[in-house]
């Protein structure tokens, strides 16, 4: 089982961000910390203790805006209530201005993986995005992190930023590669409703830079990173061998996970099926009742099958069709033979021995392919 901890706070909301997060005062953060700990304790009671935790992920927002004491208290609460696997992956997202002391502290209490939101090496792009850091902040943060003992660091890069050219993106990528991080995520900017970018760029379908440019930037990124020995293991994720994000891979492989915190999603067993649920997204409700949920759906077998395929296809290794058969008692082909034949004929998927995966063309049209597997 995996655990996700949501910290809905940040120093300043970025111009593109539609995640559940925003700035908060110290008092709010403390009240939230207390509520989180209450939730962790109560959730643990209803879950089997035999379930070893293989991954913990502190995401946000920016979890590093919490004080070391708060982060320590949350982490300790998890340690008390759950059995954490000896070599569990324990990640926290940090912004490049977190500071040397905090990084050392995080490493000391048990975090072993960092995800740094760098996004770009260009001042103009960082300003446009509304980020509060500079490239120098990132460089310093990375060196401090290594110094603190982090041997597994991921860096986020944003692509398709308005005005971004191939030269600009390749400069950013090279400046990341200089530090040789274990893992790189590249996210293509999407204009979401309710963000300052939405006001600015309007209700446009697709990327601001245009689809053609967006794809060019995407494939250039893939080529550059593969060239440096990174494995392209998921549509937007790259890793040195053995450093694939265990936590995110868990989502794509449908490992059970408990999400705690405001608006956090979970996928937990419910008799022979799985249930997907989501906590309340209202802060006041959450701190009053940290178990309040706004969604609770028990999946049907068919929904579990659909998820297994469209989530599995996000990974370059694709869906493990043998594992599929032993789990659901039928082959993927028996359910989707015609669909697969069509997609293969269109050059969108490959059918290998024991796997079904996206082709390069299939990556460009991923949603189209995924939608074909919905009944």
């Amino acid at each position, binding site marked *: 089982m995996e655990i996700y901890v949501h910290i809905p706070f940040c120093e300043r909301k970025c111009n593109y961000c539609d995640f559940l997060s925003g700035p908060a005062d110290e008092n709010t953060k403390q009240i939230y910390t207390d509520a989180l700990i209450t939730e962790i304790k109560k959730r643990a009671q209803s879950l089997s203790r035999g379930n070893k935790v293989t991954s913990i992920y502190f995401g946000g927002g920016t979890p590093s805006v919490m004080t070391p004491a708060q982060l320590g208290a949350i982490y300790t609460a998890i340690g008390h209530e759950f059995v954490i696997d000896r070599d569990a992956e324990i990640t926290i997202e940090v912004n490049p201005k977190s500071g040397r002391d905090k990084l050392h502290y995080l490493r000391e209490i048990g975090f072993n993986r960092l995800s740094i939101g760098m996004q770009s090496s260009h001042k103009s792009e960082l300003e446009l995005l509304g980020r509060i850091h500079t490239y120098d902040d990132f460089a310093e943060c990375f060196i401090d992190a290594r110094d603190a003992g982090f041997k597994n660091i991921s860096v986020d890069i944003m692509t398709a930023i308005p005005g971004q050219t191939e030269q600009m993106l390749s400069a950013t990528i090279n400046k990341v590669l200089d530090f040789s991080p274990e893992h790189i995520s*590249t996210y293509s900017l*999407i204009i979401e409703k309710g963000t300052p970018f939405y006001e600015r760029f309007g209700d446009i379908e697709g990327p601001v830079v245009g689809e*053609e440019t967006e794809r060019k930037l995407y494939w250039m990124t893939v080529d550059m990173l593969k060239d440096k020995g990174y494995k392209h293991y998921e*549509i*937007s994720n790259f890793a040195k061998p053995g450093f694939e994000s265990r936590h995110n891979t868990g*989502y794509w492989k449908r490992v059970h996970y408990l999400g705690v915190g405001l608006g956090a999603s979970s996928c937990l067993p419910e008799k022979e099926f799985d249930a997907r649920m989501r906590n309340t997204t209202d802060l006041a409700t959450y701190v009053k009742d940290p178990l309040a949920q706004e969604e609770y759906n028990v999946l049907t077998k068919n929904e579990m099958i659909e998820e297994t395929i469209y989530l599995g296809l996000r990974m370059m290794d694709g869906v493990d069709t043998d594992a599929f058969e032993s789990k659901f008692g039928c082959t993927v082909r028996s359910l989707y033979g015609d669909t697969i034949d069509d997609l293969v004929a269109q050059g969108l998927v490959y059918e290998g021995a024991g796997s079904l995966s996206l082709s390069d063309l299939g990556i460009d*049209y*991923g*949603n*189209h392919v995924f939608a074909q597997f919905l009944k």
Partner: protein
Amino acid sequence: MDRQHIRNFCIIAHIDHGKSTLADRIIEKTGLLTQREMQEQVLDNMDLERERGITIKSQAVRTIYKAKNGEEYTFNLIDTPGHVDFNYEVSRSLAACDGAILVVDAAQGIEAQTLANVYLALDHDLDVFPVINKIDLPSADPDRVINEIEDVIGIEAMDAPRISAKMGIGIDDVLEAVVNKIPAPSGDEDKPLKALIFDSIYDSYKGVIVFFRITDGRVRRGTKVRMMATGAVAEVVEVGTFGAGQFIPCDELSAGMVGYLTASIKNVRDTMVGDTITDDENPCAEALPGYKRVQSMVFCGMYPADGAKYPDLRDALEKLQLNDASLNYEPETSIALGFGFRCGFLGLLHLEIIQERLEREYNLDLVTTAPSVVYKVYKTNGEMIDLTNPTNLPDPSEIEHMEEPIVSAEIMVTKDYVGPIMELCQGRRGRYLSMEYIEETRALLKYELPLNEIIYDFFDALKSRSKGYASFDYELKGYEPSKLVKLDILVNREEVDALSFIVHAESAYERGRKMCEKLKDEIPRHLFEIPIQAAVGGKVIARETVKAMRKDVLAKCYGGDITRKKKLLEKQKEGKKRMRQIGNVEIPQKAFMSVLKLDDM
């Protein structure tokens, strides 16, 4: 009741001049309903009629009025449809009356339908007296309108009641005028039964209810009646008169009276509007004049969006037809749209009403193809076919020539917009006949126009070019030879039968080009490039391309929020369900209506 105390009349007006409101006031004032019971516009029964503010089917109501001379009069108020599509029904309703109240808006004055309706009423020898309505409006100018009526129509208007039906002003004057200016019905109740059907409706309990006006003779329960044109014979179960929204049975109706009968007739087709009812055992010598079988003027294909709903659509059409003898339909099949029906209508409004009723009352999701008029195709082998579906056009080599329906149109418009309206008519292949100024600022334009040029969007174009100041009326004139071609649309090189339409050779290029442009916007991008072509006789005359989609993938995975991702995918999948698969291209259903909207561009 002696005939001297009966008044059979109707109200005629241009649309929105206040016909239904005046009818409401008359009913209210004559005591049939108290004000509290009044629902606005009592006569317009169907929801659709109320919403659109028009009368679709004619209705009748009977009220008792105690006049100033102390005597009681029976008023039979027959409401007439206000739209040109239903002209024939209007004419039959008028034939059931002895007089008409002409309502003219005190601000707008005479409009095209005012004239058309007055002429129709005068043709039926009705005594027409005018009423000036909406005098409460700030822009009202009753004196000007009275002059206009005298000058243009040539009927006495000096002492016309000046009223506001909405505010209830002057209604008493109208009621007195009905007594004094509309003649009592003539006729002989001892002669054989002779009665005119002006409407009929289907009721699931009583069967068909026939609305009629008796010219001669009498009818009662047990009378064996015969419909002279259709030949249907049935024994009368009930006769009666009309309350507002209800039927009041009585023992007998006689010459001069207006009422209804039921006779366990199952189909309104047996009781066609305009037919004459007579006594089967003692028939009258000849039928009343003017009966004609209504012809469908406009045809289109109607298909269920969900193919499995075909039986539901068939049942719904069957039910609607029980009540609407002018609706025709027969099964047809389209390669693009599957199983459906080719339906015939009186006009575009009629089409829209049926479509809306199918969607609203029967919960059907429909795909409707472009409306078509009836073309006459003369083949080289001497055969002539009435073409209602462009797909059935014979090979050009078999066609000797084709003819299309032409209408005579009258357009009334204020001076400033004469130019744009003439331009519009010329653009629609109109043949200019005449123009006369009916007053300094307003002109009456007469044109002959091909019906297929006005069925789509002529009303809208007219309104937008005249800022709403033009009014329009037309009647079918006949057929004329015309150089017509079938325009085919090819999507990804496959012909889409449901998108074909007949067009004049000279406008083929223009229409084809616009159609391609429109479809380019309607058809979503696919993984491959899609050519959209317009072709005449196999020759491509216009082309557009739907570019290939370059990407369709979400990079982000929302912190384990799979539900949100799934919703996006489901939306995508759902969108596809509403499309029609032609070859390997998915076409949204609304694209099949795009030919209707070509002039919006």
